[in-house]
């Protein structure tokens, strides 16, 4: 029996991760997002792949919401083997014009959310002496991006959180890694102008944008026993856009 929870999985990369984990044989997939009804499509897609899926309403910016959700999962499935911290938002704007609220909301969801989630699941993983946590960072967390001081700071923070948590939990068999996607076709990137997209394309050696499945494949590897000796690492999935 294996159980995975994927935050922000109503659509996009989160949904692709749920589907990939289901294809790889993870038995129970907890699909969570801010509204339970948003999760229905992902739940149906996962069920169609033969796995068990449940929708769960979790606001990752609130510790109480996370704790209640994690307790419910433990009660229902007995364990959490895989946790993917994927929930994230953008509130782009130039530093000079970025409001405090834009900063706080992005940091609360993208970074604090992953911290609270990791804290809640690690309790159970420590006890089980196993578990894999995968944080979805971003290429901009490694290289920066004009107009995304808040988002890039949250993603850079996720990389550091990944490494510190990996050091703390490693001796107990709990692995913590990150995937840093580059430019991936999704709702979050659809809103960018053609001009911006073309400029980004010219910086990608592979000459194309990535698909959500490309990210899901890397997540599934880190979540699986195939990565049993991998912890504290960041796998970039960016078509060569950045080579750290």
């Amino acid at each position, binding site marked *: 029996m294996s159980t995975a929870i994927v935050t922000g999985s109503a659509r996009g990369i989160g949904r692709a991760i749920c589907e990939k984990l289901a294809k790889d044989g993870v038995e129970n997939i907890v699909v969570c997002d801010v509204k339970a009804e948003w999760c229905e499509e992902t739940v149906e897609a996962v069920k169609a792949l033969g796995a068990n899926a449940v929708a769960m309403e979790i606001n990752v910016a609130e510790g109480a919401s996370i704790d209640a959700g994690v307790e419910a999962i433990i009660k229902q499935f007995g364990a959490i083997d895989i946790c993917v911290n994927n929930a994230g938002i953008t509130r782009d704007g130039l530093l000079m014009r970025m409001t405090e609220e834009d900063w706080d909301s992005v940091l609360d969801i993208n970074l604090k959310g992953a911290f609270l989630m990791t804290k809640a699941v690690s309790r159970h993983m*420590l*006890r089980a002496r196993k578990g894999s946590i995968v944080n979805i960072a971003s290429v901009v967390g490694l290289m920066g991006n004009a107009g995304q001081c808040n988002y890039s700071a949250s993603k850079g923070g996720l990389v550091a959180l990944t490494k510190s948590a990996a050091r*703390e*939990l490693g*001796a*107990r068999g709990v692995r913590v890694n990150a995937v840093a996607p580059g430019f991936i076709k999704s709702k979050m990137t659809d809103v960018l102008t053609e001009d911006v997209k073309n400029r980004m394309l010219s910086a990608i050696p592979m000459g194309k944008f990535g698909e959500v499945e490309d990210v899901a494949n890397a997540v599934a590897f880190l979540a699986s026993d195939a990565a049993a000796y991998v912890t504290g690492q960041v796998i970039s999935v960016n078509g060569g856009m950045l080579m750290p």
Partner: protein
Amino acid sequence: MTLEEKVKTIICETLNRGAEEVTPAADFNNDLGADSLDLAELVMKIEDEFGSMIDGSIPEEDTANLKSLGAIVEYLKSKGVADEL
């Protein structure tokens, strides 16, 4: 079962130590070789076991004093947990 016996069982399990080693005064760090993660885990288990009797969680500032079996038993008693469970 007494409170001390119950706590002792939890400590033996968590720190992987024999019952004879876990005396009331044995210091988790110095005598029983526990590291900080062991102690965090121990506090978690104590909370799980006695949470319903002590208002849920143990405040972070209190955990620093929980260095031995005796200290944990005293702490739980001070929070109203009975000697006999």
